[in-house]
């Protein structure tokens, strides 16, 4: 099942190359929908009482090098897989409703990107993870570079230059990660049977000294991908250059792979180093929150507002993970899904706004709400979710994160709270600037303002429904992720998974545990 999920998009992509040009778009949509179907089937059959891997596949791939083709689903990646499948349907469908240059290659690359992203979520072998992590970049390099927007006329960079910057930044991290991953396997094997299986490596453990340098090689890769403050240099140019359907999935999913990597790889394999460098990473996370927020409410380009807000949100997620408590990481996983679900619609809306106003500058937008009330309503829901309005799943996610952070590092928590306030400002500024106010320039007035079309609604409405659905029932995610997250965090805190304790508890006690009121002492 995992294999079907992984390779379905690629198979559709390859077949699509042999179809006539006009069929490429619908075919690609079909491919993503089928993938989503498989992902939903996996989620339905998921057993949420256990922290062990489900739908596991484990075959030797390169036996001489100890690399296995090993996939699996657990609480950490289940919803990220669903998120990937959902957003790809949205992104590809949105693109399919429009004319694309060189369409067959475009959809092929989009589907390759989906396979690579799903692969990095599913992989349970360290080298396989690194492979997919690097592979994700290749299709986006072409998508951003060849279908991107040349900004050299406005004093920016060409699309090719922007993507080169992006790929060099991200690969700096991932190549070092490749070395670090191999070193992890070899040091852990210590002359014995070489394996890169994450589960086996978790059992073997590494010496403290090795963990220290390997931790940073991995952290660098993940922090660049997010991007975190100081390592975000590639982000503004790349976000300005990217074609919007590709950017929606890129921003919605790829940034999460970094955060997911911390949970999947760093915490279980390098627990000593994680504890040792907890505060350094928390500082980076806080800096990301503050810097991202401040930048988000000073930028005027709508893409960059969304981009910098992502920096801030991922700072939150990182902070939640590095609270090193179950509730913080629970919140982080929930928030990864939430953020993916809000940022992708934002980029879709941005694309619609750009089509209507012909500008990406928020100062030249405005006044749309009257003429396009449905679009405005959808945007309002998304914006309110972005600022973590109480009642939204984002609120629950941020609450969990802050709850974890408060109990772990109270000082950091106080600073992080300011990020919540700032997110309200930039989200509302974006919404008001685009929807309310009066159109800034006369020639824009009324000319292109129109309601969202049926086909774009078909893309946007399901995404917004997902946001609402999660807002109503965040337990959907939390109860499935909790066992795995607790086991992951327990490893760092030097104890065994509190599953046994959980299993013996009554329902009320479980609820208390989940809300953080009762703590399990390992």
């Amino acid at each position, binding site marked *: 099942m995992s294999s079907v999920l992984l390779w379905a998009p690629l198979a559709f992509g390859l077949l699509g190359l042999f179809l006539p040009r006009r069929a490429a778009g619908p075919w690609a949509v079909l491919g993503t929908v089928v993938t989503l179907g498989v992902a939903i089937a996996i989620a339905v059959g998921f057993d949420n009482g256990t922290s062990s891997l489900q739908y596991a596949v484990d075959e030797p791939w390169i036996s*001489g090098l100890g690399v296995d083709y090993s996939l699996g689903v657990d609480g950490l990646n289940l919803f990220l897989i669903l998120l990937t499948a959902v957003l790809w349907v949205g992104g590809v469908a949105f693109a399919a409703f429009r004319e694309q240059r060189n369409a067959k290659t475009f959809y092929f690359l989009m589907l390759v990107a989906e396979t690579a992203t799903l692969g990095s979520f599913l992989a349970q072998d360290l080298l396989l993870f690194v492979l997919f992590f*690097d592979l994700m970049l290749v299709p986006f390099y072409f998508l951003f570079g060849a279908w991107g927007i040349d900004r050299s006329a406005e004093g920016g960079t060409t699309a090719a230059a922007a993507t080169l910057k992006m790929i060099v930044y991200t*690969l700096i991290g991932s*190549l070092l990660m490749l*070395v670090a991953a*191999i070193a992890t396997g070899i040091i852990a094997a210590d002359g014995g049977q070489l394996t890169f299986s994450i589960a086996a490596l978790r059992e073997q453990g590494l010496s403290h000294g090795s963990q220290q340098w390997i931790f940073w090689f991995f952290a660098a890769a993940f922090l660049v991908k997010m991007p975190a403050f100081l390592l975000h240099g590639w982000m503004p140019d790349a976000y300005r250059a990217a074609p919007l359907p590709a950017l929606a999935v890129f921003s919605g999913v790829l940034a999460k792979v970094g955060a997911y990597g911390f949970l999947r790889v760093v915490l279980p394999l390098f627990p000593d180093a994680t504890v040792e460098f907890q505060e350094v990473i928390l500082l980076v996370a806080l800096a990301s929150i503050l810097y991202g927020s401040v930048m988000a409410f000073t930028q005027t380009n709508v893409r960059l507002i969304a981009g910098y807000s992502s920096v801030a949100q991922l700072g939150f997620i990182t902070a939640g993970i590095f609270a090193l408590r179950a509730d913080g990481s629970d919140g982080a996983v929930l928030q990864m899904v939430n953020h993916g679900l809000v940022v992708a619609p934002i980029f879709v809306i941005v694309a619609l706004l750009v089509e209507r106003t012909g500008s990406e500058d928020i100062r030249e937008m405005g006044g749309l709400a009257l003429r396009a009330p449905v679009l405005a309503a959808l945007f309002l829901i998304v914006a309110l979710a972005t600022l973590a309005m109480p009642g939204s799943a984002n609120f629950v996610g941020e609450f969990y994160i802050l709850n974890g952070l408060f109990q772990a590092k109270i000082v950091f928590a106080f600073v992080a709270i300011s990020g919540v306030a700032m997110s309200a400002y930039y989200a509302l500024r974006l919404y008001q600037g685009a929807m309310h106010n009066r159109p800034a320039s006369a020639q824009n007035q009324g000319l292109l303002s129109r309601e969202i079309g049926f086909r774009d609604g078909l893309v946007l409405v399901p995404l917004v429904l997902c946001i609402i659905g999660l807002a109503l029932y965040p337990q959907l995610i939390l109860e499935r992720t909790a066992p795995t997250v607790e086991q992951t965090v327990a490893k760092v805190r030097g104890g065994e998974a509190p599953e046994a304790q959980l299993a013996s508890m009554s329902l009320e006690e479980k609820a208390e545990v989940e809300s953080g009121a009762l703590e399990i002492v390992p």
Partner: protein
Amino acid sequence: MNFNEPHIDYAGISPLIALTVGLCVVLLSGVFKPTKRWAPGLTTITLGATAGLLIWQWDDPKPLITGALRLDDLAISISLIAILTAAFCVALSLRERATEEAGSGEYHSLLLGSVLGMVLLAQATNLVTFFVALETLSIPLYILCATNLRREGSLESGLKYLIVGSIGSATLLYGMAFLYGGTGATNFGGIADGIARNGLDGDPLILIGIAMAAVGLAFKTSIAPFHQWTPDVYQGAPTPITAFMAVATKAAAFAVFLRFFDVALGSQLDDWQPALAALAAISILVGNVGALGQDSLKRLLGYSGVAQAGYMLGGVVVLSESGTSSLVFYLAAYAFMNLAAFSVIVARERETVFGDDIRAVRGLGAERPLLAWPLTISMLALAGLPATAGFIGKLYLIEALVEGDYTWLAVFIAVGTMISLAYYLRVVAAMWMRPETEAAPGARPVIAGASPEADPVDPEAGSRWYIAGPALLASAATVFFGVIPQPLVEFASHAGAALFS
């Protein structure tokens, strides 16, 4: 007096016999007008027969000619890489101007001569066969580089290669003299024994010998700082020959590098290991930085070859079974990656007026996807991106390096790879992200009296089977072995086991 007939293992030397016979036949075929056209075909048959005979000897290691040669899986795998490259070179040489100018028979027999040298070199276990093989390999190449008789660059390239190559050979020979002087043996095994017997451990005589031998081999494998000839020679030589030189010479020289340093000088590991590691690091740095500013694709691949040789030298440095296997794997992957790139360059050289300039591939993605994809795959693979053989090769090398306690060199490879992205991706960007250059491909320059040399030879070159075929084949192999590397890994681990068990 009794005369003992020496035992001759005809099966073992059959590949050499096949090559020699083929060489003579091809040379003769060039003499007669009706048979002239057969030269490429006969060359291919010779190469095929040799490859078949080599595969027949697979997994049956044995010394040949009283221990002067050793036919084992390392030798066979390297020879197969060289033969494959030569076969590609034959296909790409069809309708090449150099072939016609030098004479088809001569051109192809020189090529076979060089292959003969490589097959010998991969088996050499004696200083004499080592040197003779190296010269057999090199001398035909000096001439082949200059076969584009009416182009100044080609002649310059041949002469430059001759002079620099001779310096390399002379240095190597001088180094061998020291080793022979110290140990009294020419056999690799005898040298190792001699060092132990005469108490020459760490003796200056031996160290000088090792250093000079390493320098000589560094010239041949174009390892910095002995690489200066590489970009110039690569650029000037006819492109099919450049492709052959870039891949096959490197493979054969690395084979003897491994054998010589393992069998003869293994006991001096502590002395040469750090020095070779430093050479590898310098090579990675110099090659990658040098390639950054290149507009000529052949020069770019030349510098990239310097950097790649640095990566591969890592496999020699660790002197282990996995090091050797990873090196052979990387050489095979390198062959596919480079051959795909050179095939496309050959096509564009004949189609456009830009020669091997990067402008020749601008806009190729939209206009000629069947040419653009092989070059794209080749560049991504050389940069070590996943789902290509290049990634698995790097993974293999890094694993060997970390195992051999050379993690810093592994990090160096990673750093070098980052730098390399800037120029590999520049080529990719030129194909996919830039509009086509003003002068349409095939359009002739509007210069009155322009020499016919500057004109495109064949505006349809990229669609011809003998160019598009190799390009697609090599790039398909690059991707195939990136996704299903197991067969190639087994092939390479056989080679590693040959030297270390």
